[in-house]
């Protein structure tokens, strides 16, 4: 199992430290020569893809994708629109056939052992769709029983979990988008699978609905269910997931614990009355690459120990200092933009 040679190394340090909610078995398995890529150990992997590739005529929608989702992960699958997230999920569910490579769910290869694999997972792709002329309960009974026997108590239980217990007897045709999303989650849960795959589950929901669904996902994670959450909302992944992969144009850009996709910075931000002169002074001190302009601030890549010297130089050159503040920790969004921009730059070269 080789790491994607084109994927950017997220953290080229040692194996990721276990963080609360993260899988302790996570560790790098790529060879020493290749870029380090965070993967699960064989015992803990619930979902993996191996060189998964899908072409639609001339378009390569998924390109040699190697994902690894560990048991108990709430795994974020991040990418801009058109990055191949939904196509990847369709491949995992066996709805479409790969051009090459395969997915593996627990011990079952997809597409070859699709039926067996589907017994271990539930979820939805795109918007969940149901039979509109039937009630939610009947939909769950009919579709859920394709996975084996489903009791009425279980139907009641999952409807309660997603907050639809009062509308279970209503026809789904009258449901709002948000209610259908919830019903999609209920169907995913009905047979108690080890792995839940949700494709943009909060899209189109109101803020309260988003909050409820995210809390439900967190709760599933706490109960030990592995959740694979596709999203283009970086904030959502930061809030909910412990591990994530970033894809762009069907390729894996990065994969690892969210805490490590979220690197800290020791930079400080400097605001003065004369930013032009301050820039000149600080570049004199730190070199041309040590200082960047970021909107109204100057961002200085320097440790706290250099701050007194910077201040002395600025004061000596009669630059009035208004503020020196630590640069805010770099968010996943910045990381995502940085990684995808780097990929674009490499492509241009």
């Amino acid at each position, binding site marked *: 199992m080789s790491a994607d040679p084109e994927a950017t190394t997220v953290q080229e340090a040692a194996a990721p430290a276990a963080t609360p909610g993260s899988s302790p078995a996570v560790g790098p398995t790529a060879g020493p020569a290749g870029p380090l890529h965070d993967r699960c150990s064989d015992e803990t992997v619930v979902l993996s893809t191996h060189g998964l590739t899908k072409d639609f005529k001339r378009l390569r929608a998924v390109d040699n994708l190697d994902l690894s989702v560990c048991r108990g992960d709430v795994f974020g699958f991040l990418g801009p629109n058109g990055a191949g997230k939904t196509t990847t999920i*369709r491949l995992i569910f066996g709805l479409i056939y790969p051009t090459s490579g395969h997915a593996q769910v627990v011990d079952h290869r997809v597409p070859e052992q699709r039926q067996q694999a589907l017994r271990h997972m*539930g979820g939805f792709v795109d918007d969940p769709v149901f*039979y509109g002329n039937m009630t939610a309960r009947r939909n769950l009974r*009919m579709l859920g029983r394709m996975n084996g026997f489903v009791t009425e108590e279980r139907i009641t239980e999952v409807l309660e979990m997603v907050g639809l217990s009062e509308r279970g007897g209503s026809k789904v045709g009258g449901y709002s988008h948000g209610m259908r999303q919830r019903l999609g989650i209920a169907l995913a849960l009905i047979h108690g699978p080890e792995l839940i795959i949700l494709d943009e589950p909060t899209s189109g929901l109101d803020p309260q609905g988003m909050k409820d669904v995210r809390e439900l996902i967190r709760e599933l994670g706490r109960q030990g269910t592995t959740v694979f959450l596709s999203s283009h909302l970086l904030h959502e992944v930061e809030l909910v997931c412990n591990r994530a992969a970033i894809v762009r144009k069907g390729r894996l850009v990065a994969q690892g614990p969210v805490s490590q996709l979220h690197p800290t910075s020791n930079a400080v931000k400097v605001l003065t009355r004369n930013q032009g002169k301050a820039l000149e002074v600080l570049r004199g001190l730190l070199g041309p690459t040590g200082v960047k302009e970021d909107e109204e601030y100057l961002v200085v890549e320097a440790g706290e120990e250099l701050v007194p010297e910077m201040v002395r130089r600025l004061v000596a050159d009669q630059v009035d200092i208004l503020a020196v503040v630590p640069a805010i920790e770099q968010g996943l969004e910045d990381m995502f933009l940085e990684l995808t921009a780097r990929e674009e730059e490499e492509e241009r070269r």
Partner: protein
Amino acid sequence: MSHIRREFSKILFLRRTYFGWAGLFLIPFLITVALRLSGEGPPPAEQGGPEFFDLIANNGLLVAVASLFALVTFLLPLLASMAGSQTIAGEAEAGTLRTVLMQPVHRGVLLLAKWFVANLYIAIGLVILAIGSLIAGGAIYGLKPLTLLTGQTVSVGESIWLIFLAYAFVLVGMATVVSLAVAFSTLTNSSLTAVGAALVLVIIMLVLGSLSVFDFLQPYLFTSHFAAWVNFFRDPIDWDPIRDALINFVVWIVGMTGIAWYVFRRKDILS
């Protein structure tokens, strides 16, 4: 069996299911009332109608036969096309196909269950048509012993048995149209396209079958065998055309369903 039960319960929740069945129930009444009011009777044999049509005013049993004769070339193929096209394309169009296929179900088994239920829909429709015909014919003309095409008369019970055989034969004929529509249904995500394609092919076959220059094609066109059921109303029954027709139907059914099976097993579900 559970797949068949599930697929059948789905069609019971569709309003169009009942429209089709209601239409089949009402048509014999319309035919009977129209014949009664016009006082002219059905087209006589010399004008292209089967010989027993001349006798319909004397026996309500013949309404069942007349209904079959009236519907076998268009309305029944239309219903069969609609039922077949809903199997895959209809669900793909609605988006429910992916919901179903995300459950652990074998695609081939699902397809066969859908094919079976589409034919079951037509079978129920034919039973409704027969019941409607017997009620309408019995109420207006009475049910009497039937005179066959070969001149013999058979009892009401035996007549109903022959009518049953004719309807069963037509059911197999309609299974060819269902199979055709199912095959088209796997090739498109639009049920309207699948219905249209199946119906156009049926109409093309009917046209080819009506032109003497294409007589050499007759044995291969399933539409040319649709009328072979009239041979049940001879004594003895003329089995040769019935056997030829059934062989033709089975070849088409197996061929078209085989294509559907092959395509659907490998189809990328993008709807």
